[in-house]
Structure formats: structure tokens, C-alpha cells
């Protein structure tokens, strides 16, 4: 048993840290429901100005379009990324040999390449292919990432070889083994990967800012950044934009939280 003092210290530390972690989010929520002038005055209770803030937000920016673009881009990107990276990670681990291990080591070095370094050539490459302002140009650089392949490769390690052997004897093709045996078994790894990929796709800002230049392809993070454009900042409206931009990732996080922890555990073993 711990001493009372130690226990008190531990709970106090965790409570203070938890409060500091959620305070900015609570502040965001309060600000989204209050008048800008009340936000500046430091009002910290939810207000009744939500509808008005919403009205000025949709008058100011094309919220529906940005939400739709963000949802569509993030959803398609997540599906493609999970498919391509999981099958690659599985391939690297289950059928591993010297050649594949060498290729994997080379892929890992790609993790060190900073995005700023490839941004300009990639922009030139996509513009010479007439792909600027397309969804494909936004997605292509994020579909296959060394980090995701590594995560699935590590997770494949815990997948029992007996299952594969048994399925082969039953006459299942290699691809069918992957989809019908591996895919359902690795649900928590997929959930963890999905959380990470969706959040990255939704929150991505630098690359869409570079490659998506028309008003029609605006995404949520770009919309939020635009809200700061005027001479005076309407804090109520700004924080409502921030709040709306945060809801989808928060929902994904809450739904997959449990599997996320399990999936990460499998990956760092």
C-alpha cells in the first residue's frame, strides 16, 4: 500500500494535468457559444450565441463544401492507405526472405525524408501531370507510408502461422487468406491504424495548402485558417469553426479509443 501523502500527490498531479489538457478544449466550446466580446472578457460558461455564430460562419465561409471535401478526402484516403499498407506489411512479414527484408530497410529510410524536402518537386511533378487541385494529388503522397507498413508488419508477427497452413490445406488462395483470415483477426490493429490515418488525413494542412488552390477544393483546416483573415477577429465564429473541425476526429477517437490502445500495444511489442 502506498502512503497517504504519496497517493495524494499522485492524484493531484494527474488531476491538474488532466484539467490542463481539457481546459483549452472547454474554452473552445464556451467561446463557440458566446459573443466575441464576451470571449475577450474571459467568460467561461457556455452561452446562447451559438446560432448567431453559426450564421456568421456560413455567411463568411462555405462550411458545407469544406466539410464534404474533408470527409470525402479523409474517408477515401483512409480506406486506400489501410488496404495498401496492411497488405504490404503482411507481405513483408509472412513471406519474408532476404530480398524483402532489404527492401524494407530501404523503405524505412523514407521515414527520415522531411515533407518540406519533397513538397516542391512533388508540386512540380503533379502540375506537369495537370493534377493540381485534384483529390488524387492530395491523396497520393499519403497512401503508402513507411510508418503504417511497419505497424502492420509488426502486427503480422503475432498472426499464427498454423492458421495460414490450415487455410492453405483447405484450398484458400493467398489473397483469400489475407482478406478472410488476417483482416478479421487484426481488428484492433486496423482500428489503431484507422485512427492515426484518419486524423492525419483530416488535419493535414501544409500539402492541401500547396496543391489545392481553388475555392472549390477547400478543406476544414484551410477554412479555419481563413477565419483569421479579417482585420478584427470574431472569436465566437473562429472558435465555432475550430469546434466543428474538431468534432469528427474526436468522434473517431472516442469510438476507437479502446482498440487504439490495444493496436498500439501489438505494434510496439
Amino acid at each position: 500500500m502506498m502512503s497517504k501523502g504519496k497517493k495524494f500527490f499522485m492524484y493531484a498531479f494527474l488531476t491538474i494535468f488532466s484539467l490542463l489538457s481539457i481546459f483549452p478544449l472547454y474554452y473552445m466550446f464556451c467561446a463557440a457559444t458566446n459573443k466575441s466580446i464576451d470571449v475577450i472578457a474571459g467568460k467561461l460558461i457556455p452561452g446562447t450565441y451559438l446560432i448567431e455564430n453559426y450564421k456568421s460562419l456560413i455567411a463568411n465561409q462555405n462550411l458545407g463544401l469544406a466539410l464534404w471535401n474533408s470527409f470525402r478526402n479523409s474517408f477515401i484516403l483512409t480506406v486506400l492507405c489501410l488496404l495498401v499498407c496492411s497488405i504490404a506489411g503482411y507481405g513483408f512479414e509472412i513471406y519474408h526472405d532476404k530480398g524483402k527484408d532489404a527492401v524494407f530497410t530501404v523503405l524505412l529510410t523514407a521515414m527520415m525524408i522531411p515533407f518540406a524536402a519533397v513538397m516542391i518537386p512533388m508540386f512540380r511533378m503533379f502540375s506537369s501531370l495537370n493534377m493540381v487541385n485534384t483529390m488524387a494529388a492530395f491523396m497520393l503522397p499519403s497512401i503508402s507510408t513507411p510508418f503504417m507498413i511497419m505497424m502492420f508488419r509488426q502486427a503480422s508477427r503475432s498472426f499464427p502461422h498454423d492458421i495460414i497452413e490450415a487455410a492453405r490445406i483447405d484450398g484458400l488462395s493467398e489473397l483469400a487468406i489475407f482478406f478472410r483470415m488476417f483482416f478479421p483477426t487484426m481488428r484492433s490493429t486496423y482500428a489503431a491504424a484507422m485512427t492515426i490515418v484518419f486524423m492525419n488525413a483530416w488535419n493535414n494542412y501544409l500539402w492541401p495548402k500547396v496543391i489545392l488552390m481553388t475555392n472549390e477544393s477547400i478543406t476544414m483546416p484551410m477554412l479555419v485558417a481563413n477565419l483569421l483573415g479579417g482585420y478584427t477577429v470574431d472569436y465566437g465564429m473562429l472558435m465555432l469553426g475550430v469546434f466543428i473541425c474538431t468534432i469528427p476526429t474526436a468522434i473517431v477517437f472516442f469510438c476507437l479509443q479502446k482498440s487504439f490502445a490495444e493496436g498500439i500495444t501489438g505494434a510496439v511489442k
Partner: protein
Amino acid sequence: MSGSSKKGLTLQEKHGLTGWVFLTPAVLLICWTSFYPMIQAFILSLKTGMGVNLSFSGFSNYTRILKDPTFKQTLFNTFFYLIIQVPVMLVLALILASLLNNKQLRFKGLFRTCIFLPCATSLVSYAMIFRSLFANDGFVNTVLRGFGMNPIMWFANAWTARAVIIIALIWRWTGYNMVFYLSGLQNIEYSVYEAARIDGASPLQTFFKITVPLLKPTILLTTITSTNGTLQLFDESLNLTNGGPGKSTMTMSHYIYNTSFVQSPNFGYAAAMSIIILILVAILAILQMKVGDER
């Protein structure tokens, strides 16, 4: 996918081939969107000119970097964030994770959710939240006034502006790293801790003699990813402080972005700076792996 038509291959060769088919799409994509642009960036860094009119000029872009005060400023800023933020954040994450790993602790799930929640906010969003919290007429100054203190013009002074960026970064990323440590800790048998307690080890001894060594692979992973992330910092610099006051909080990625897309575009010079970042990231990763391999 069934290779039964390919006669003359042993079963093992067939499986090997299937493996290659499985990993080809991912490998090709990474080559196309990482390695190929990287080589292009290097070629580009040897050229000078404005916009699309480029001509080879040897290493002149690199010699220009050495004389560029703005590059030195952004290099200093980025490394300042790195040496303050990464250690503070990782130590905090490690302490929080080992506290949360305690079997006797109640409300574990609640604490974990609260501390991890900042990760759900987008980079632009949290930059906006901290920007309005620390604005001249923002919440923090209202509180300071309430206590009878003078308000601080956070974004008007280089050091306070840097402090705001570091506070924001720590807020956003501590929970994320904590989850990795928590997962790593769950792989350590609880009986190891029980034994240490029975042998009379203090919590501090347990932390340094058991937790840290057993978590070393995870600590190494988070150190490398955090270093990499901080060296590539962009969103915070652009949306929280816009690099200001002056260029005193601007990061290297932000400067590269400005050089390529905001001021009169100079792709060659921007590419040369990005190659410098690549070299720095690589050197730091190798150093960290060397240190991590010791003992």
C-alpha cells in the same frame, strides 16, 4: 492470384512471389512520392532562377545558405524548440504513463482520456485556440489582470512568443507519446514491479532501474519521431505566430514554404534548404540510434 498455372515453381518460390505482389503497390508509391522527389529536390538545389526559368549553378544555393541570416534565425528557432520541447514532453509523458500504470489507481480511464484528448484536435485548430488564449485581449491576460498583474504582450516579444509555441506543442503531443509508453509498460510483467517493491526499491529507483531500461525501444521510437516532427514544424509557426515578431519564431519548414510559394518563388534555393533539413534529420536519427544501442 493462384499461381497454379505457373508450373516449374516450387511452393516456396510461389509464396515468395505472392509476397512480392502484395508489397509492390506500397513500394512503388513510396518510390514515386518520396524517393523520386527527393532526388529531384537534390537536382533542383543545384539550380538557380526565378519560377520555372532555372539553370544549373553548382553549389551556389548552398553557399548562399551559409550567408543567409533568415536561415540561421529559423535554424536557431527550430533547434530551440527541439531542445526544450522534446525532452520536457517525453519526460512528462513517461511520468504520466508510469503513474497511470499503477494497479491501485482509480479513474484510470478518465485520466487517460483527458490527457490524450488534445491529440484529437487538428494542428490548425489548436494553433487557433492558443492564439486566442494568449492574444493581447485574450483569456490569459484577462486572468493576469484579474490578479492585478500587468498583461503580457505574448506575441510581441520573441521569447514569450517562443514560449507560447513550446507550451502549445507540449499540450498537443504529451498524451500522444504517453499512449506509446503505456502500451510499452503493459508488455512489462507487473510481477517485476512487485518484486522490486518487496526488495524495498523506492519509486524513483524503480522508475530509473526498471521502467526506463525496459521501455528503451519505445523511448527511442518516440524520441526519433518527435525530433523528426519538431524539425519539420510548420502549422504552429504559420498559424500561431505567423513567424513573428519579425522572423523570431519562424521554423525552417515555414521559411521553405515562404521561399517557394509566397515571396517570388525560388524553388532551387528552397530545395537546397530542404536538403539541409534532410541531412539534419538523418544525422540526429543516426546519433539517437547509436545512443539507444549502447549498453
